[in-house]
């Protein structure tokens, strides 16, 4: 069975997100506006107002409340959706941890933006990075089509009986939130069909009035450890599930993204660039140009940030001669960018090779074609034994 061809519309990333959420038929929605996410909240309210979406929508007074509404409704059995960004994401931090700890399958779009510190209304992945250890599944997408497809896939993953975890779908603020692109919107009946397997699973535990069910018992000693172990194990299981769902999605809708990571021309590559989000598109352009010059370079686009796609990365990078990692955020107190730092943690398994860390694309500074071109050249030189710089802040050069 194959899905019908969907209608193609030109949509911004934010509108795409709202359409994606509507297709998944959430029952409870709560969101609080913040640049560059606001249109998501507005558009969902319009859908409810025009009757095209039958959902309870709560216009909350802050992001902490948005997440609590979603967490609680989800624990009562509802399908829920929310969206936020930056200040909003960190404002809900306490509940973010609780939502994951309670295993509430909330699906949230996070429109990446720099975090408080220096007031920056601009793109960057620092928000997502700063919530890394919240116990959520975190996925980063590259373009508007991937936003819609990944949100649909996220419900399959979050509400999977074996997983039951919240998912944060990240896309670049400004670059995607306000970018209009042609997007194929799947037919409602096809999305229903794709999500239908969830209905055949055992009902997940839920809070039922009058039935002596509880959520959030004080975790003491072994009870706590066991709950943590199960949470941790579910994250481990999620890795394979991401691949499986992506494959199934591809077979049905004709589009797939590689699951945990997307590999572009890595098979015969000697050197690899690791990047994520919208910048991955520019990296592909540079790779094509550099290959024409005879440099055997490939791209690993990291889609899954948490859980860490360790095995897939080892497979993709083992035996390569050098890797350059482009980070759009910082790991304060550690010199490499966060994604580079994590790659270093699996360095023994990918083999000894130069790993070069690049910081670029902070605060709306473009990761340009010349920037990426320079990264490829330096990584290529390092692969050939030339001395290299550990960490390079490209905009500061």
């Amino acid at each position, binding site marked *: 069975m194959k899905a019908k061809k969907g209608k193609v519309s030109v949509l911004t990333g934010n509108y795409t997100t709202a359409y994606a959420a509507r297709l998944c038929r959430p029952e409870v929605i709560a969101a609080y506006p913040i640049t560059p996410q606001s249109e998501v909240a507005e558009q969902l309210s319009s859908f409810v107002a025009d009757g095209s979406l039958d959902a309870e929508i709560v216009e909350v007074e802050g992001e902490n409340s948005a997440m609590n*509404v979603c967490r609680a409704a989800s624990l009562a059995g509802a399908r829920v959706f929310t969206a936020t960004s930056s200040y909003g994401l960190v404002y809900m931090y306490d509940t973010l941890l609780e939502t994951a700890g309670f295993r509430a399958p909330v699906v949230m779009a996070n429109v990446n933006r720099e975090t408080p510190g220096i007031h920056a209304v601009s793109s960057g992945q620092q928000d997502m990075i700063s919530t890394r250890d919240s116990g959520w599944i975190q996925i980063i997408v590259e373009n508007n089509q991937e936003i819609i497809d990944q949100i649909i896939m996220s419900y399959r993953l979050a509400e999977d009986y074996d997983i039951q975890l919240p998912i944060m779908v990240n896309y670049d603020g400004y670059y995607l939130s306000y970018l209009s692109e042609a997007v194929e919107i799947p037919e409602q009946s096809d999305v229903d069909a794709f999500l239908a397997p969830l209905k055949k699973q055992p009902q997940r535990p839920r809070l039922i009035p009058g039935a002596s069910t509880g959520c959030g018992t004080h975790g003491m000693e072994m009870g706590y450890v066991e709950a943590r172990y199960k949470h941790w194990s579910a994250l481990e299981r999620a890795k394979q599930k991401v691949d499986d769902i992506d494959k199934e999605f591809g077979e049905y809708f004709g589009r797939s993204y590689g699951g945990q990571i997307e590999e572009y021309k890595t098979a015969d590559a000697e050197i690899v660039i690791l990047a994520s989000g919208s910048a991955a598109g520019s990296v592909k352009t540079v790779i094509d140009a550099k290959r024409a010059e005879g440099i055997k370079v490939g791209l690993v686009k990291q889609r899954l940030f948490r859980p860490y796609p360790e095995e897939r990365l080892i497979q993709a990078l083992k035996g390569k001669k050098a890797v350059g990692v482009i980070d759009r955020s910082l790991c304060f107190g550690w010199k490499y960018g966060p994604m580079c730092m994590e790659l270093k943690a699996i360095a023994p398994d990918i083999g000894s090779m130069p790993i070069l860390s690049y910081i670029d694309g902070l605060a709306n500074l473009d990761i340009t074609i010349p920037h990426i071109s320079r990264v490829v050249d330096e990584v290529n030189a390092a692969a050939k034994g030339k001395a290299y710089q550990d960490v390079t802040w490209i905009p500061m050069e």
Partner: protein
Amino acid sequence: MVEATKKRNKVFDYFCTDEQFSGGVAWCAGCPLELTARFVPKVLGKNMVFVGTPGCAAPVLHGQNIGAWHKLSYLSCVMTGVASSATGLSRYFRRTGQDATVVCFTGDGCATDIGFQTLSGAAERNEHIIYLAYDNEGYMNTGNQRSSATQKGAATTTTPVGKVGRGKPTASKNMQMVMLMHKPKYMATATLSHLEDFAKKLQKAKEKSKEGFVYLHVFSPCPVGWRIDSNMTIEVCRTAVRTNYFPLWEAEDGQPRFTLEVANPKPVTEFTKLMRKFSHLKEDGLAELQKQVDERYALLKTLVNAGAQK
């Protein structure tokens, strides 16, 4: 038979449902919190869902000791997320036609301070929930620190009395008035010494929560933090009412009315002398407290008489 039912003290009529708590729950001896927590579901019925937060109620409601517990459904929350979590539950229960009374059960610290944003938001949106704040005038679970519900002059562990310190330097937030100005569907004050009054208010709260937001402010002295003898808590509740320190009233759609008007209120010193948290107060401090009691009562009375916010 009819006679017999009529003669029975009316409070018994409200004890319609089973006891929802086991014996041996972990509250301090003499704490009115236990009696309040037991009493509330007896009136509201077993379809009530406790939505709670860290505080003295939490270890029991959320099962720190699951040997002695309750039978109700519950959801535990962070202190900043009680009214919003209740919103999520109630929206979904209503949408799916599940009969439930969603009750936030938090301390004054959560209600008046860290959880106030979400409480105010839920009231403004007229969510179909009951928010019950049990007021023990401080953060008791963490060891009797001041909250914004702590009375002026009261000694707490963060407003201690010493060579310089004279207890809490500012007056308590008049939370009842703050909530009245939200014009909830229904709100009321209640305390254990006036059990029938309390029960009626709970019944009305349940009914009114089908129309929207309900706020209940329950006076709940803390024997440990206030330094009250554990056999005296109900007497402290009664004296708080009789001195107008804690007047009993209710309001539908923002229109307050007294449910009990004390004919000859006693001086507030009758109340303060029952505990040691005010024992350092001299005449001027006590006079100031009396003045506050009188002023707040006068304001309330004006609103009652004026048919305020009609």
